[in-house]
């Protein structure tokens, strides 16, 4: 799906507007913004391996956690700079992705998903037992009260990862990934080096996920096993990407922002029923817009309300 020029210009101008948020003097909004942008990065990074390549990873929290710990250990135990810490975290994640990716990516569908989940649990348990990582207590990072910095950094990573996805969407590499998603055996006999492509996609995904993990760690000034390797992160990033539109350039970003907003609004107004409504939103979304918001947008313009009936007819028994 190639994006038209007007669409890109619109996205670029929205990015510029978003960059000015720190100057709106709204601390609550800024904090919400940082969280939402970081979730958007994770959803977008997942999009590369889950959306384009069709390998549904439920273990990207592994790379997130590696990013947080890589940064934390570099800064706290070795007294190095934040920049170096980020680099270490990202490198760690990429190395793990390459090493573990090769055997795990041979699995298909839900088996791959559960293997990635297992990976996340295992890596989390390892860090919970490492002295250098502070074992179960974790580590405390140096304090830097500079919310705008963290916001702009996160936004910068979001722009970077989105540009990467845009590039992938238009490249030979991207068409290869899509071919793998649509039919891996057919892709293989058409000459696509499926192993290389899948592992590369996973590594790119790991890189950006780790990057945002490192930023998050420095922002909240601590890391510990349960928050760094929180399994709910995985579900969140997958839901956001799928809600917005997997395999599209802007879908995951849109999905992340919208769902973050809904979640925040629900939590602050009807906090008790928030999770109930969230669950209902998910069920309805899968029923009526299983291909995501972006596809809904295009489809509704073409077909109007018939989009919904067509979708249901396509997927019903």
């Amino acid at each position, binding site marked *: 799906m190639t994006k038209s020029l007007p669409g890109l210009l619109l996205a670029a101008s929205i990015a510029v507007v978003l960059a000015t948020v720190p100057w709106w003097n709204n601390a609550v909004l800024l904090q919400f913004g940082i969280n939402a942008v970081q979730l958007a990065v994770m959803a977008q990074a997942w999009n590369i391996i889950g959306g384009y390549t069709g390998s549904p990873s439920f273990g990207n929290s592994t790379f997130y956690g590696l990013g947080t710990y890589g940064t934390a250990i570099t800064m706290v135990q070795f007294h190095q700079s934040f920049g170096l810490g980020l680099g270490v975290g990202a490198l760690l994640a990429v190395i793990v992705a390459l090493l573990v990716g090769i055997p795990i990516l041979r699995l298909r569908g839900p088996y791959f998903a559960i293997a990635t989940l297992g990976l996340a649990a295992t890596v989390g348990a390892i860090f919970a037992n490492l002295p250098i990582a502070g074992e179960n207590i974790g580590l405390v990072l140096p304090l830097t009260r500079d919310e705008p910095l963290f916001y702009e950094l996160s936004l910068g990573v979001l722009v970077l990862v989105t540009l990467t996805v845009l590039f992938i969407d238009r490249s030979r590499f991207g068409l290869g990934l899509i071919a793998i998603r649509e*039919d891996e055996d057919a892709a*293989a006999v058409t000459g696509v080096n499926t*192993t290389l492509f899948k592992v590369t996609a996973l590594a790119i995904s790991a890189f950006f996920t780790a990057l945002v993990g490192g930023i998050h760690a420095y922002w909240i000034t601590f890391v510990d096993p349960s928050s760094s390797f929180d399994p709910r992160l995985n579900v969140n990033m997958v839901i956001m990407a799928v809600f917005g539109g997997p395999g599209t350039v802007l879908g995951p970003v849109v999905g992340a922002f919208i769902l973050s907003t809904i979640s925040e609004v629900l939590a602050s107004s009807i906090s008790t029923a928030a999770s109930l409504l969230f669950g209902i939103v998910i069920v309805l979304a899968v029923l009526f817009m299983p291909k995501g918001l972006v596809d809904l947008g295009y489809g509704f313009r073409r077909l109007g309300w018939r989009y919904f009936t067509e979708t249901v007819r396509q997927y019903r028994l």
Partner: protein
Amino acid sequence: MSVPILEARNLTRRFHGLTALNDVTFSLAQDEILGLIGPNGAGKTTLVSLISGTLPADEGALLFQGAEINHLPPFRRARLGIGRTFQVMKPFPGLSVLENVMVGALFGFQGGVESRTRAREQAEFWLEFTGLQHRSEQRAESLGGPDRKRLELAKALALRPKLLLLDEVMAGLNPTEIDEVVLLVKRIRDEGVSILVIEHVMKAIRNLSDRVFVLHHGEKIAEGTPDTVFADPRVVEAYLGRRRQ
């Protein structure tokens, strides 16, 4: 041209204790069209999967242009110039017809082309060759039966193969369509492609093949010109069953 483009020696493949292919040996000469027939379940598609690399062989040797390829994964074989169509057709459903063929152009012979623009041009050429140019923007999953066959063919051709494995491209086509495909296949051979054709449509096999060989229960039971093979009593028996005494 003495080296056959494809040579199979003693190929054997087992599934959970069942022997799908047993000690199959044959060769395909350069620019030859070799027909492969046999009743359902004889192992024809399994043989094609062994050649394309989709399934590994348990025993035997497989030589492409004189070199052993049994250890190569499917994508390497595609890059060497082996193209195949699938009997149960496997288009990339979410992609357009044009994009489907572009994949072949991008990743085919010797790694294909680098730029999507070049690939698009090549894909358009192959769509015209197979008569699909007016459907290029349609989603592949919305195509009807005969057009799906054409798409399978176009995808395989975009690889610029030297060896083409056609698995029942004519199933479900009416006689006119069959004649068209036969002409198409001959044109492909004239471009310098060697072809292995699996078919049930005997008329097509007779018109197309230089030689034919027959599989039954995973074993080769006959080989020769179409006329010789069709007259062979063992072949008749395989298809029609044992004659009651």
